[in-house]
């Protein structure tokens, strides 16, 4: 990893009126990396992005891009001088310009070669003279990317760029766009509410909950070792069981293990894929059943009354009412209440 990050956000806060939208947000985006800011709607993601792009002023903290201070309570570099490319939610192509006109918007006049290069990069050769209304949603998104990349920005911000696309197209376009960003070595900040999207494409994930950074790190760290019950609940499916800690050990409905918590009530996280149907486990009855094609999930009511979710191969998808036995693999994560 590079010693100097392309984007460095430090202790950033923003209020709208009396409402704290962001409080003490800090993170770095290393050069050439893909960083995802992940969080549910209305938790400050878009505000963070607008602060970085320069559309809003900073109340407290600092924003540095390539080592230059661009935003602080005293300093505000205008958006047109930050060298930050943005790809908005629905592309936001200029409807009065052609594809080439859109791509070349941020370039000096007569940069036809660069425009062609960009159009080629996003695989839209031959469409330069089309209007935005004449191309598909996925193509529009690629034009928006080409337009953002054309002036060679320090940083590209993607604001929920795939959420407006049809589910069937989304994964393909997403892989393609991220592929291009990686190929060009562009430092990328992606804002999304889709945890699967963030986990699958980002090097680094910043989880933003209630205007504060709840956790940041590599996707696997966050999935496997969530910092809080809230993060755990937000990232992936979770069985959260209540239990008691006693003398460094915790006993819950699905097993028993060591823990570092002091004696008292705790919450235990068990991921559905840690569980399996097998003889000799805890017994219960299938209460719900969902089939996904490649696999499925079962909701099993344990004898003690707790309902747990289990990810199972298709062969194990027992009908509702079937008595089953459940075993757990690996360790559960234990949280203080």
């Amino acid at each position, binding site marked *: 990893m590079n010693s100097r990050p392309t984007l460095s956000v430090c202790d950033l806060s923003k209020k709208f009126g009396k409402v704290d939208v962001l409080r003490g947000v800090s993170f770095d985006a290393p050069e050439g990396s893909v960083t995802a800011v992940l969080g549910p709607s209305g938790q400050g993601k878009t505000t963070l992005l607008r602060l970085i792009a320069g559309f809003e002023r900073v109340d407290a903290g600092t924003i540095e891009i390539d080592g230059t201070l661009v935003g602080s309570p005293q300093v505000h570099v205008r958006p047109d001088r930050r060298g930050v490319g943005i790809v908005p939610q629905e592309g*936001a192509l*200029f409807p009065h310009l052609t594809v080439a006109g859109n791509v070349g918007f941020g370039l000096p006049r007569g940069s036809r070669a660069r425009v062609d290069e960009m159009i080629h990069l996003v695989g839209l050769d031959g469409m330069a003279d089309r209007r935005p209304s004449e191309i598909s949603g996925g193509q529009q998104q690629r034009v928006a990317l080409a337009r953002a990349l054309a*002036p060679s920005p320090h940083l590209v911000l993607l604001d929920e760029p795939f959420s407006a696309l049809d589910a069937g197209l989304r994964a393909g376009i997403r892989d393609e766009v991220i592929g291009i960003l990686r190929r060009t070595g562009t430092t990328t900040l992606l804002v999304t509410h889709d945890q699967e999207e963030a986990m699958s494409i980002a090097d680094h994930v910043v989880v933003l909950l209630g205007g504060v950074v709840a956790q940041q790190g590599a996707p696997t760290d966050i999935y496997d070792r969530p910092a809080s019950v809230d993060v755990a609940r937000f990232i992936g499916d979770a069985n959260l069981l209540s239990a008691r800690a006693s003398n460094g050990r915790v006993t819950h409905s699905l097993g028993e293990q060591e823990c570092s918590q002091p004696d008292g009530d705790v919450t235990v996280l068990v991921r559905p894929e840690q569980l399996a149907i097998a003889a000799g486990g805890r017994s219960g009855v299938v209460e719900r059943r969902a089939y996904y094609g490649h696999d499925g999930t079962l909701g099993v009511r344990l004898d003690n009354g707790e309902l747990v979710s289990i990810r199972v191969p298709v062969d194990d998808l027992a009908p509702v009412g079937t008595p089953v036995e459940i075993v757990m693999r690996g360790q559960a994560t234990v949280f203080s209440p």
Partner: protein
Amino acid sequence: MLAAVASLAPLAYLVDVAFDRGANYLWDEIWQRRTFDLVVRSAVLAAAVTAASVVISVPLAWAVMRSDMRARRVWRVVLALPLAVPSYLAAFAWISWESSLAGFWGAFLVLTAVSYPYVYLPLTAAFARLDQALDEIATVHGRGSVARLMMLSARQCRGTLAAGSLLVALYVLSDFGAVATMRYDAFTWVIYGAYRAGFNPTRAAVLALVLVLIALVLVAAEAMARGRAVTTMTSRAVIRPRPIRLRRHAVWLQALAVLVAVVSLAFPMWRIVVWVTRFGTEDGVGDVASALWGSVRYSIVAAVITVLVALPIGLLVARYRTRASLLLERSTYVTHALPGIVVAISMVFIGVRVFRPVYLEAPLLVLAYVALFLPLAVGGIRSSAEQIPLGLDDVARSLGSPPMSVVRRVNLPLIAPGIASATALVTLAAMKELPVTMLLRPTGSETLATRLWTYTTVSDYAGAGPYALAIIVFVAIPTAIATGRR
């Protein structure tokens, strides 16, 4: 800011003159029986015309937008056209045919015929955006009768209906030509009478102030209604509704459409054709051409300047809803409450003292038009600017464009159709305009409106014919094109 000041100057004049003889005199004038009668007469006319406009517009707007009415695309345009008929022309056409129409019923007929499009037009737009599901639910629940569907749709669009109704009421209160021709003692006619006889400018100013106050209340109400109308119509889904079958209702709806078109369009046109063919023309082609040139020249110059002034205001209000920009917009809407005759008299007073070098020259007339029609242009530009997604500005900024460059490269090209239609609207409004043109036209020059007015006041059909024809052609045809494109 200059625009706002120009809009408010007439108001300052009114207050000044009204207090000329002291507050007591002012008070006595207001609390006179005849002032009260005047308020009642004007209010009755405004209420009657508004009610009739709603009664006409709801079924017709519904039929042309939601039903399978025959030739509904043609009707859509035809029914909007009366907007282009100057009220004094329509009034003259009727009264020259049947002189007993003079008074309330004539004024009511003519004003309804020319002002109902203020309800009809926004209503068609609102109906177009109305969710089809409502009709379907209503049908499923057995409330499928056409009349009930109409009522249901109208209730859904009551914000639009309220805003349109208030516009009609405002139009009636500020109209001069129709009440003057029909000799109905409404505010504007009495104000003109006081001015014309010339002995009591104080009374004219007092009455004008009362009228402006009433109109201001309507403007405020209209702004509120419009605010609500916007929020009720932000539904994103634009499903093209399946036309509802009219069956037996087709007959009366067609009949209503024909009746409205005949009263408001065909009849005045027929009268004009009769005048021209029976009486020929008194004035030579040269006179008509020079009046036409006057109309076209002043109104186009006024339209261009009005739109240039309206552009920053409309953009500011649409893009940045700050308190200052809203205030700026509101202040231009105050002029909306200033009837032409009031603006005209104020401009004579102010013009001769403050703008002496251009008094009764083209620049002052143009300035008066700008003050009068600024709200029209601001409204048009604002609504088209509001349709640009805000994200486009941000993207343009991030691509290195400074704010002014964003306006030039993104905003202006995108609101170009709005600018064009605002320019057309102001041009047409200025060509139709009577009282301001009459009092402020440059000495020695005439317009179609002033010529027509001169001949109508002496009931000279032969003289009026060619000017009436020219005004209809030059106002109605562009209106048809503009509404047809919508």
